[in-house]
């Protein structure tokens, strides 16, 4: 009998711990944050997380969520983790909703930045072209790693037709590929290119020709200008400033109209012709 009681107790403790864990992670709203400042009539908003754990979309969405809760919003957090599913949810939403987005997704997801959804251009960064030291004197066709979503025609126009384009799943896979000696060059984002330069294995240059990536925030069914003020305040908080500084991200803060115009201009660069 004693053994059974002990087993029951162990089982109960394990269940309780996991229930607590799930409560903490699937918070709607986050119960541990209820102590933060609340408005008198809290406004509700759904925040869609389109990024995977460990990625920049995920990290930024979490910071926005925390900031909105602190600002008194009732936040419903939809932890989707897949961009196309998040976009589908965003399009179908009839409630006040926001999500982190970027201009390099607009054609694939068929969701463009417009006056009806644009909130803020958070930062922009150029694409970099990196080349290994070992390939400096190489003659013949060069192998170039690129993200699978990049337009091959655009890359050929930039690098010449005498290159072999090698597609990779994502920016991290490209970095590992060039470090492993798979390719002579890569076209990658700023973060991974800085890492590559730090390795001493090669050099990188920001491209003027390739389209710049703009990280944005979009929303719907809500006063976009009011939300922009709150979102802007959140991006001026310490965690956000640290996030941008560490990654050397350029913030083109301007007026809403100018940021929208710039974003729309940048997103044209990702059209696959």
């Amino acid at each position: 009998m004693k053994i059974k009681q002990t087993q029951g107790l162990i089982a109960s403790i394990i269940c309780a711990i996991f229930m607590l864990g799930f409560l903490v992670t699937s918070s709607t709203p986050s119960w541990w944050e209820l102590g933060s400042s609340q408005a008198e009539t809290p406004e509700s908003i759904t925040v869609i997380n389109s990024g995977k754990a460990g990625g920049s979309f995920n990290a930024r969405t979490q910071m926005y969520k925390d900031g909105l809760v602190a600002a008194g919003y009732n936040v419903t957090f939809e932890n989707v983790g897949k961009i196309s599913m998040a976009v589908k949810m965003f399009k179908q939403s009839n409630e006040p909703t926001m999500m982190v987005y970027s201009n390099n997704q607009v054609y694939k997801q068929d969701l463009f930045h417009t006056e009806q959804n644009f909130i803020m251009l958070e930062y922009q960064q150029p694409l970099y072209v990196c080349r290994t030291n070992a390939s400096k004197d190489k003659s013949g066709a060069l192998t170039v790693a690129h993200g699978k979503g990049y337009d091959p025609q655009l890359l050929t126009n930039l690098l010449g037709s005498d290159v072999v384009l090698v597609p990779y799943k994502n920016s991290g896979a490209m970095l590992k590929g060039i470090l492993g000696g798979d390719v002579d060059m890569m076209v990658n984002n700023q973060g991974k290119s800085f890492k590559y330069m730090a390795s001493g294995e090669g050099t990188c240059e920001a491209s003027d020709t390739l389209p710049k990536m703009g990280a944005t925030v979009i929303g719907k069914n809500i006063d976009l200008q009011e939300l922009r003020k709150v979102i802007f305040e959140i991006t001026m908080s310490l965690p956000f400033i640290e996030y941008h500084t560490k990654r050397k991200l350029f913030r083109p803060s301007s007026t809403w109209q100018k940021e929208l115009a710039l974003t729309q201009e940048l997103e044209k660069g990702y059209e696959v012709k």
Partner: protein
Amino acid sequence: MNELIAVSTGLFAGTITGIVPGAGVMVAMIIATPLLMHFDIIQLLLFYMSLASMVQFTGTIPAVYLGVPGETNSLPAVIEGTKFNKRKMAKLAIGICAVGSVLGSLVAVAITYGLLSVLVEHMTVFFSNATKFYLYIFIIAFCLLVYNKRNILVNLVLCAIGFMLSVPGESDISPDFRYTFGIEDLQFGIPLIPVLIGFLIVPTIAKMLSSSNPNVFLPNVDIGFCKVIKHFRKKLIPSSLRGSIIGYLCGFVPGVSTVLSTNASYSFEKKLHPNNPGKLLVASETANNSGQFASMLPLLLIGIPITGSEIVLYSMLVDAGWSPFQFDNVSNNADMIFRQIVPWFVVANIVGLVIAWPLAKKVLNVFANSKKYMIVILGIGMLILNTYLGILDYRVWLYTVCLFVFSCMGLLIKKYETVPLIFMFILGNDMEGVFFRQMLI
């Protein structure tokens, strides 16, 4: 004191994560995020290391007793562990796995210490497409030549089914969605859990039900720890050392790491000792721990995460003040590994051994007392797990349909070993990308 807190919480989280099927290191890291936000860099590393090590110990328990893989790298433990359970020797299986895991960890530390400068110089070799290409060739060859009494045709069909199941959705080399048949949920591929349940757990349950013995979970022979050590020393050290080395090398391969470690070591050992479950089990479980340590080295030394859970850890490390650019810091990082991480790693492994042993006894008591009702609990548990993960993934209908379809298929092919199918399903997409790039390069 701070280090002790980090290691203790990591070990605790690892104990629970290991015995709960489907709850892997990545899930545990995400669940523990509110706690980890208050940890500094060393604490985060120690937490992760303790968690990942402990999962390898306790993950063997459900694999051996229930035939349920905690993670994809538990497949060999399921296959060989259940053979021990049928012979009332589950406790011996847990024991030799635990001892082998400690040995694997120590061998991994020793190799790292002895070859650190070589490793730092040549670590990126493991990142190359060619390395993965040849490893995949090796794995495919073993899948064809080792399983189902070396029936190549059967293994080929199973591999083909596994690969076909991995095809729908987004591939590694193209942004387009393929073979989705208009089903939006298929854009993200066929989910893993229904495949594992359908092709691995359902056939196991069916075999249990058709067994003539009414008591499925037989009372196990109580084996003392000293006897386990003696058995290990006499018969299993060579297998364990082989597993350690294979596991260590495969641990560096991005994306597949310990999955490759475990299965490559298992396949290699199966070639040498096809009918010795003890050697097969020890080789794969030793490789698991050895590979786990190796997989952390690219992150710890040069700041490059190579597994999903490491990406989560990396993000937390950067938030805690770690520079994302670690290439200039390799010698300091190496110093940190041996001064601050390795001592706790050894402690974590010894604690893992100490905890896994009595915990196994407790679990054994629960199962032995519950007998066949455990089958019902297992079945319902898997259904709940599948539904819950489907809801979390916003694809509950696809999960449910897949579970039904794959369970039926699993029952139809229950007399075959389905490891080649599952392995090709897990790695198929990555293999396709690697083979395609190899042709271009």
